[in-house]
């Protein structure tokens, strides 16, 4: 959706007389980037929501290309603009590994050790990509697509 893409990049919206499609195509041609952002839904369950402000469902927008080393210094509200690229280093398409780092640094409210261990989620957390076990989707290397839903649930033990 071109309108959305321009909005998130913080570009000025075209006046009503201008044609959105043309405007966006032009802008995209300007910078040579086809999709600047990816919108996705993230959900937490099994108690993990407590670490994220007790909110189960989150709608996020992430840059389409992210640093190879998963460093997440840039919050989504100020994405790297195509004209003024903040990322000097190597990039990759945004994937679930990056998402995990991003959640830890930007959305997690407390006790990071209950969410991550080493470079990935802690044991006992199951990651689901569009209702499928992430292991079937390439785990952290799964490249996130617009509209994807990623769910993090903690395994329960009570009975």
């Amino acid at each position: 959706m071109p309108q959305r893409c321009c909005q998130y990049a913080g570009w000025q919206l075209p006046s009503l007389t201008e044609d959105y499609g043309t405007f966006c195509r032009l802008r995209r041609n300007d910078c040579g980037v086809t999709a600047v952002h990816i919108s996705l839904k993230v959900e937490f369950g099994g108690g993990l929501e407590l670490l994220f402000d007790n909110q189960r469902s989150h709608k996020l927008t992430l840059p389409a290309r992210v640093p190879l080393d998963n460093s997440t210094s840039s919050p989504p509200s100020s994405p790297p603009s195509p004209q003024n690229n903040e990322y000097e280093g190597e990039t990759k398409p945004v994937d679930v590994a990056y998402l995990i780092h991003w959640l830890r640094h930007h959305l997690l409210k407390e006790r990071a050790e209950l969410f991550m261990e080493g470079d990935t989620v802690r044991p006992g957390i199951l990651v689901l990509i569009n209702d499928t076990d992430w292991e079937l989707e390439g785990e952290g290397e799964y490249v996130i697509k617009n509209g994807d839903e990623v769910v993090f649930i903690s395994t329960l033990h009570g009975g």
Partner: protein
Amino acid sequence: MSAAGLNHLDDYQRYGRQMILDGFGLPGQVALQNASVVVVGAGGLGCPALQYLAASGIGRIGIVDHDVVELSNLHRQILHTEQRVGMPKAESAAEAIRTLNSKIKINIYTEALSALNALDILSSYDVILDCTDNAPTRYLLSDTAVALGKPLVSGAAQKFDGQLCVYNLNNEGPCYRCIFPKPPAPEHAGTCEETGILGTVTGVIGTLQALEAIKLLAGMHEGKASLLIYSALGVPPFRSIKLRSRRPTCPACGQEGLKEGQIRDTDYVAFCGGGPPDWEKKGMMQGDPGLRITPTKLNDILASEAASHTKILDVRPRTEFGICHLWESINIPLKELSANPTTTASVLEDGVKEVYVVCRLGNDSQIAADALRALRRDVVVKDVIGGLKAWSRDVDPDFPVY
């Protein structure tokens, strides 16, 4: 009566409403009659599961549980009764389902399931139900189910959430270790006592476990490994997840030659990091008298002149504070206090010389008192040994224990 019929004439009437279902029929009912199911854990999940299994006419049911019935179980463990508080759960549940269906055979095991007895106890059953409440037993059950080549219908519930999965389905599906190769640290694996559980949530999951068992026995299971996630407050509340296949490297169900690591016979509790901490015992540790105080001594202080410059700080979550609290106490949950210690410290107005920190069992209060001491050197900060539970026991028996 033919060999492929029901054992008793009135069984046709009793099970008629499910026998007339297409796809179930007489063969389905005969399959249940000849089947055996063992339910490990006669608690929140086990009770509804046992109830439906017994009612449906499963021929033989095993019940494994080493606990006794407590008053705090009754809101969700619906086979137990006020009269049977104190009775072993396995016996209480057996009594309940015997009243429901006198023709089924029931075997009771009141010992704790361990690596030493699991094969013996479980081997004579067709389907195993995991209705337990702790990680070590979940790994033990999974390994045993794989070793015996039996399906394991696993349920779990906590707070408003539940999970359901059939492991080792048809001896092809993944086992518990395939999905969760590494156990979580025990302090991350909450129990119903610590985290709470809505009674009907265990009812939903336990009932679904009975349903899965019936589908397996009657040959009606679709045979695909999936994980069902239930959130009572979610919209929609159910979500079905497509699961990975077996891990070839799984130490339990993997392929010979590819298995990574081995399961030592082992102390499952040690594998899971030493079992859940005994919070009540920890909270009762006497500690440094300069840092901790007994409920009785606090009561003396509150009755003395010192009360005028004394504050009681209750650091339990607001919901728990709302259940009951000491009337003179103020509530700042540990979570808020840790996030914002300076604000908390400033809440204590100038005249205050002594602060007594209290929680339910006396663990969180120690953390809070430490944080407060670091910020307010001018006041005496102590926390109450054993928390409000000890207060109720030693000072005010009318104070509610929950």
